[in-house]
């Protein structure tokens, strides 16, 4: 699919916005031996609900079992598996790159080409940000690496179904025990 990781799947999990929900979800992954590749959590348009976007690594365990076990959590209201071809994905990255003043222009140029932003400039370093598809971020990160990355943080991806076609969901809308 994307990111050079064919075994990754995106789960969009709608949960009740209550204390401990993230602990329940992450605890379930730990307890059942599933790997989380990335995780992003925030409230939705309905303040009573949060959406957790989980990129799961299913080389170790079938996706179906993950989804079913997640569904058993009382706080989990809905789970959609998003097909990358039928969804829009975005991720944000912030990176500080060590670069002497005379070469700074190259990094600025690179950031402009990728339509990123300059967030801060120091004498020996520059902090840039980029949002976009995870693949685009991978490419940008690769190019920055040549200059020397001091610190880098990515948010993990968030995703929603594309508007023209409905997100393919492997899971029925009904809830399980």
């Amino acid at each position, binding site marked *: 699919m994307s990111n050079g990781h064919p075994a990754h799947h995106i789960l969009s999990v709608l949960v009740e916005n209550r204390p401990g929900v993230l*602990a329940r979800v992450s605890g*379930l992954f730990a307890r059942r031996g599933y790997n989380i590749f990335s995780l992003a959590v925030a409230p939705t348009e309905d303040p009573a609900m949060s959406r957790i976007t989980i990129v799961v690594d299913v080389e170790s365990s079938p996706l179906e079992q993950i989804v079913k076990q997640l569904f*058993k*959590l*009382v706080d989990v209201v809905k789970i959609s598996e998003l097909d990358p071809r039928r969804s829009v994905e975005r991720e944000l990255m912030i990176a500080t790159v060590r670069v002497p003043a005379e070469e700074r222009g190259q990094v600025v140029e690179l950031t402009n080409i990728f339509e990123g932003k300059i967030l801060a400039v120091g004498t020996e370093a520059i902090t840039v940000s980029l949002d976009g598809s995870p693949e685009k971020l991978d490419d940008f990160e690769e190019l920055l690496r040549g200059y020397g990355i001091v610190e880098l943080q990515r948010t993990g991806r968030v995703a929603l179904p594309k508007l023209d076609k409905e997100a393919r969901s492997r899971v029925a809308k009904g*809830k*399980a*025990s």
Partner: protein
Amino acid sequence: MTEKLTGAQALIRALELEGVDTIFGLPGGCILPAYDPLLDSPIRHILVRHEQGAGHMAEGYAHVTGRPGVAMVTSGPAATNMVTPLCDAYMDSIPMVCITGQVPTTAIGTDAFQECDTVGITRSVTKHNELIMTADDIPLMVRQAFHIATTGRPGPVLLDLPKDVLQNQMTWHWPTDSDVEDSLPGYRPTTKGHPRMIKEAARLILESKQPVLYVGGGVLKARAADALRELAELIDAPVVTTLMARGAFPDDHPLCLGMPGMHGNATAITAMQKSDLLITLGARFDDRITGRVNSFAPDAKIIHVDIDPAEQGKVRRPDVPIVGDCRLVIEEIIKALRDMLAGGEKQADISAWKSRVSGWREQFPLHYTQSEPGDALKPQYCLEKLRDASPEGTILCSGVGQHQMWSSQYWKFNEPYTWVNSGGLGTMGFSVPAAIGAKVGRPDRTVWAVDGDGCFQMTAQELVTASVERIPIKVAVLNNSYLGMVRQWQEMFYEERYSEVYLSPELPDFVKWAEAMGCVGIRVESPEEVEAAIEKANSIDDRSVVVEFRVDAGEKVFPMVPAGQSNDDVILHPAQSSQREFLR
């Protein structure tokens, strides 16, 4: 009119309204406020000697009544002592509500005295848990807890109540059913099976030439024993009942093959192995049943009925998955079968299969070698005598180990809810407290706990609870001075190198110990004494009785499928092993 109550009063009233008649518990600092209104409540409180006992008693109560067992303890160490019963109830899908005290909300997170992260610790061993932060939430949280514990796949739910939440004032209100449902948008168990899948299941059943009904604890949870019997008789197929399902189908029924699995009988194991269709009802393909999974029932198609969708395909991919309540689904399958039969379809001829199964049964009955006069007593003999002398409807509880397997093998379970044991978690020490809880739930029944000497020493102090609370149970301790099952594995798989399994032949003195706890103690050392001792124990109604049977330490449980091996390689009793080609 608005009525003001404390959180504690609201809690006790909510429990009363949920129909709770008994709480098993032990008070302490943070739960103190809840124990005050309990004095004015009709709810009976049973004061245990250890919080683990309260949890297992609640489980025993739930096992035999089908109603959720309730345990209430304080914070910190009391809550951690509850972890084992919660996990046990989670593994065996026992409906249970556990209430723990917590330090005041202002002290949470400060490492206060007797503080622990109860909801964090118990998250993975409960179906659901909640830390209640305001007294106004108590009625809804209690209603949610009972709803979640008893519906779908049952399980334990824990409510953690900070002391100030119990002390604060709230305005009393009682949520309606729809309030509860609306408050749980993510909880909608599926109970009705999919009609297309049910038809498909019926079609496979009619086509099968070698069907087996593989029955698990879900049939008991769904109160589906009658429906199961109707289905089995309609299709005339043999039935195996797992350790969690003993009693779901009568052992004396001609179609009943008894228990399959690691210590199942050769016929039940082999019938599953050779089957072409496993009609799986409320069972979960546990490793103790399947042996090595990739060689389990290789030619069988699988119908899998379970209320928990996550069980479908977890171990073995079903050909026909049906998510739903076992009773409703079985009834629908029966209806579909009757319609198809009425429409002229015929069931495949299974007579050859049935005679093959009968052949195994004749060839491979459960077997042990009777002791010669003067030799040590055989544990199986004690259980046979106990079975034959106990009144009909006796509830049998057991701990975990050899005595548990022998109990399941040698008892005749002809009625549902007469067998209480720790299947999934395998909790040593389960027996005595579970038997006390069972007796509280069914005071009209004789309750026997079969225990090992190892298990008994883990929780025996609850017999003090039984004596003080006047809950007369009977305990048969099969004392072989060893952690017997571990000893058996060391004998068979570790070249008889016995490491830390020898307890003591003389210590403790079980008779004196029983007497010290207010029970009658009886010691039995030879086969001639067995019947008289059991008769005496059965005749005592006003006190608990402990009968210590000094049994042969060398006795092993057979048959046995060694862990991780194929069911095809079941080890038979040495006296039968020369006939193993008959299992083909």
